[in-house]
């Protein structure tokens, strides 16, 4: 199996799906001539031409709506947001149009489309460019929301998202684009809605998604040195959530830490904790703890930024606490 970057994995997914189905096109800011702000679409313009790799004006609301219209009449748009921070301008199209069209038309208009782009904080980009939107989008019925954390998952989930006849949100990570991993060269899909057990242990579960999966695996490896065996449940999809995977793990370990990139209030972790208290009440040996971004906008100063973000130490401390070790 080839070792490639997350960026290349996404590029492969786009290329393969655009070759497979000529209804698929990519649209967004600088996806064509510039080869993509993060080079995810590198080479696609040359290969597929400007009707299928479309550079747009800087108009998130506008081109997200163009995607919605194209999907209504049978095309399969992949709409790239340069970052999800900018997609706030397009939230009406995502929430009010794409997510609801099927329902309010009584089933007449499925919306086979993908909204994708980097999500969450990178480094020192400060408040307006550093936020994780999982919980905003996972809140909306009518959407599916996937958050690949590895190159393998990135390719498999993006391909599955493009083939899905529903609107699928793909939350990538700017800090992930250069990470490397094994990715098959053949055609494969990662099923939407299925979590992946990235580490196996029986002492504590870390339930996480997206970029945080890497941190969780790192924490598990550190804790293993102290003899603490951690299950790392990478949700991969946050809507629909793989409740069975969460419950199976927590019933095995009796303890859980939920790790997410976003803010605490009404976060993904809040939902995970709800599933746990409902399904695993009699199996819990400790309250479930959450690790997340501090409840502040992202500061610019390096030291403050580090304090604001969830990190390895906070994760390890939470695991030790639910195990009554500290």
């Amino acid at each position, binding site marked *: 199996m080839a070792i490639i970057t997350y960026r290349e994995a996404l590029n492969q997914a786009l290329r393969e799906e655009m070759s497979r*189905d000529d209804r698929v096109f990519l649209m967004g800011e600088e996806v064509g001539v510039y080869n993509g702000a993060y080079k995810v679409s590198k080479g696609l313009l040359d290969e597929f031409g400007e*009707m299928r790799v479309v550079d747009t*004006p800087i108009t998130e*609301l*506008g081109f997200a*709506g163009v995607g919605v*219209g194209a999907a209504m009449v*049978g095309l399969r748009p992949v709409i790239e947001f340069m970052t999800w921070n900018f997609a706030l301008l397009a939230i009406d199209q995502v929430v009010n149009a794409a997510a609801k069209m099927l329902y309010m*038309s009584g089933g007449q208009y499925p919306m086979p489309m993908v909204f994708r782009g980097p999500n969450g904080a990178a480094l020192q980009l400060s408040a307006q460019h550093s936020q994780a939107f999982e919980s905003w989008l996972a809140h909306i019925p009518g959407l599916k929301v996937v958050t690949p954390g590895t190159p393998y998952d990135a390719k498999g989930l993006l391909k599955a998202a493009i083939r*899905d006849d529903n609107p699928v949100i793909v939350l990538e990570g700017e800090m992930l684009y250069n990470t490397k991993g094994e990715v098959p060269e053949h055609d494969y899909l990662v099923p939407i809605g299925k979590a992946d057990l990235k580490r196996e242990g029986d002492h504590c579960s870390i339930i996480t998604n997206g970029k945080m999966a890497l941190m969780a695996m790192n924490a598990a490896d550190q804790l293993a040195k102290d003899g603490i065996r951690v299950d790392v449940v990478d949700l991969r999809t946050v809507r629909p959530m793989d409740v069975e995977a969460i419950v199976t793990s927590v019933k095995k370990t009796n303890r859980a830490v939920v790790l997410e990139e976003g803010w605490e209030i009404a976060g993904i972790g809040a939902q995970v904790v709800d599933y746990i208290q409902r399904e695993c009440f009699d199996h819990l040996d400790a309250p479930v703890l959450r690790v997340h971004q501090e409840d502040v906008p992202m500061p610019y100063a390096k030291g403050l930024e580090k304090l604001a973000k969830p990190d390895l130490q906070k994760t390890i401390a939470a695991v030790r606490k639910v195990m009554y070790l500290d």
Partner: protein
Amino acid sequence: MAPKKRPDPRALPGDPALRRELFHSMLLQRRFEEKVGEAYALGKIGGFCHLYIGQEAVSTGVLSMLRPDDYVITTYRDHGQALARGMSPRAIMAELFGRVDGCSRGKGGSMHLFDRNLNFLGGHGIVGGHVPVAAGVGFAIKYRGGDQVIVCFMGESVVNTGAFHEALNMAALWKLPCLFIIENNKYGMGTAVERAAAIKDLDRRADAYAGMHGEHVDGQDVFAVREATGRALESCRKESRPALLEIRTYRFMGHSMSDAVSGTYRTKAELDEQLKRDPVWMMKARMLEAGDCTEAEVSEMEREIKALCQDAWDFADASPEPSPEALYEDVLVDTVS
């Protein structure tokens, strides 16, 4: 382009059969909407309900110029256009009643009428939100090399939104076959157009986008609307260029059923003045004058339409409520491609 002069009534465009058809379309909308108002008052219809009375020449004029394979998208004030596009009064009334036989299975209601068979892409509830969607349909037409047109109706208040500008810019930039129709009924909810738009002739918004055809026209004259639409469609279909029509009309009812017809933001005198130019009765007068039909024939048409509207009501009333299982249907499809 200057508005067209009123044509000589003795030389009405089209043949008498077409004119009777146009009149029938407008009269059906008028009587249907009156029936809707009655049903709303009796609690048969709930929620927001925006009547189209006074604007019938716009829907009939524009949509009578389209091909069946063209696309239509509109706002929440969508009953008139749905009827003019050919949707059955039964399916519309059942939708308004929230029943399973409604065009959107009772899931959409007054603001969200959809009919895939008619390429009627729905009524949309967020002012401005559907204009980029129309550009997307235009993009898809061009992507596939078709010669259809997407017609996008909107109220005049839309021209002040960012979505409008973003969509028209892309439509012009990419030369998309989109016909944007501004139905200028003078008020965005309760705010007069001159209190909201920093421009007088709204069709001049087209000037901001290279190559976009723009024109304003009297919206109470169905023939004038048809002519302007024809010119705009020519631009869209033949030259693959977007066009913008400002069709000046007037709504005789309040913004929605919960809104007074006159009082706070417009005077009774203004309304009375506008009622003199009722598009339905102007059309009738011209047809009588031209000898297209007699009073007796109009009365017969009234009887037939009245029966049609009552039939729609009875059908809707008899249609079952959606089953509880329907609650969870149509959130997602379980198919992949």
